[in-house]
């Protein structure tokens, strides 16, 4: 099976400043990966390389079986849906629906298909009620969701998101989690840059940690997020649910809230009463 995304010894510099050193990893269809690390570690550069906005200095970035060196961003839009930071600034159409349908229409997909993809993307993020509104009439948090819907509507094989949850409250973050899990069940690969380890725990399954341009860590989040000794040198801290699992020694050391609640209930039932 061809990986949805593969970095092969990628090195990249902005002018004289080296940003990525020999980065190699692969993501399979349906896999949900978090790209973690301190600010300045090179995460946004990874996104730009995948979108085709930059070419690697050395090595190759493969999106499916396409070498990004041979592609321009508008071609890669067939396979990759990218949402950058401050995506709420890219909205332009008169209505949210029109903006979301911009992507599939630009790809030249037939009108009925454009409608279907737009409706699905809006529904996935509970934005259908706002579909007829002007984007700038919405609060910034909902504009961010509209920008995400625009990427979902491309129905790409790979979704690459840069900090999708900044400015969102818990309810809106839950919407994003649901939408992403739903797509991943349909074999869409996910690569999400995030500082929000709680969101990562709920939504993603594997963690790639970048440290000064190199891969410091590539492992399942379930184990990584509870391990203070691994996280601390990388400037990260276990999210509360993972820390709770460790502190209470819950079986399976769950990192997701629902799993932790179930484990907690099970253990509590088995304990002698107070």
């Amino acid at each position: 099976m061809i990986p949805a995304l593969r970095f092969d010894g990628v090195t990249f510099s902005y002018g004289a400043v080296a940003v990525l050193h020999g980065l190699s990893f692969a993501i399979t269809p349906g896999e949900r990966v978090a790209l973690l690390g301190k600010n300045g570690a090179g995460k946004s550069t990874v996104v730009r390389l995948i979108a085709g906005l930059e070419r690697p200095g050395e090595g190759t970035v493969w999106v499916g079986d396409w070498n990004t060196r041979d592609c321009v961003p508008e071609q890669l839009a067939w396979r990759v849906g990218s949402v950058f930071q401050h995506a709420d600034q890219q909205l332009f159409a008169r209505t949210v629906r029109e903006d979301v349908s911009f992507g599939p229409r630009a790809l030249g997909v037939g009108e009925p298909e454009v409608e279907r993809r737009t409706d699905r993307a809006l529904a996935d993020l509970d934005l259908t009620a706002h579909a007829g509104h002007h984007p700038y009439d919405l609060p910034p948090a909902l504009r961010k969701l509209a920008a995400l819907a625009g990427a979902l509507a491309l129905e790409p094989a790979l979704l690459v998101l840069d900090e999708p949850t900044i400015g969102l409250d818990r309810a809106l973050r839950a919407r994003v989690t649901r939408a992403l899990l739903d797509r991943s069940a349909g074999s869409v690969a996910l690569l999400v840059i995030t500082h929000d380890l709680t969101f990562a725990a709920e939504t993603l399954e594997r963690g790639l940690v970048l440290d000064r341009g190199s891969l410091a860590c590539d492992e399942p989040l379930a184990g990584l997020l509870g391990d203070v000794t691994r996280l601390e040198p990388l400037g990260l801290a276990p999210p509360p649910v993972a820390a709770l699992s460790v502190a209470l020694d819950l079986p399976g050391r769950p990192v997701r809230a629902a799993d932790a609640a179930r484990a907690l209930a099970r253990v509590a039932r088995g304990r002698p009463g107070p």
Partner: protein
Amino acid sequence: MTGRRLHPFTLLAIAGALPALAWILPAPAGGACTAAVALVLTASRGLRRGLWPAVLTAAPFWVFLRLLHDVPTTIAIGLRITTMVASFVWLAATLAPDRLVEATVARGWSVTAAYLFAATITAVPMLRGRARRIVEAQRCRGLSPRGSLGNRLRALRALALPLVLSALHDVDERALALETRGMVSGARRTPLAPPPDSAVERAARWALLVACVAALIWRLK
């Protein structure tokens, strides 16, 4: 660019005197001289930042004029417009907005007016940065800047609209945000690094003003 930096007011005086003289002095010789001076100034800022933008911005005017007027009139007005455009491009590339505000503050004049002028100059690189980000985001959604005319117009709309909308939205927020940084009208600002002025420059500025007035009087006689 080597040499000591000129005082901001001197830069303003030059950028104001050239277009003024272009319109006052008899065409086409007057316009030709001032346009030549203005273009040389833009060239001193380099091809990319100076000469090219000046030429690119002035060119459509020449085309438009030729459609409306005969050749002599086109040349006469075209040279004047070129002077104006080139002077402004040179000013935008040379004048450091912070120095202008500092110079204004050092004189004890209102900082808000200076800031507004300075902000229009800094708006350009900021908008350019944002425009680049918007172009990238739209290309990643499949927008191709190539292709048929219909395609290109759609592309333009997808690029220009978000730029304008978010910029306008920002202006709203910025006016508020500036107040949060203490920019209240009537406030007396402390100059941090007032640009040095010299008697020579002051004299030169007066001389430019006198030259413009003299030229005006001479033309009106």
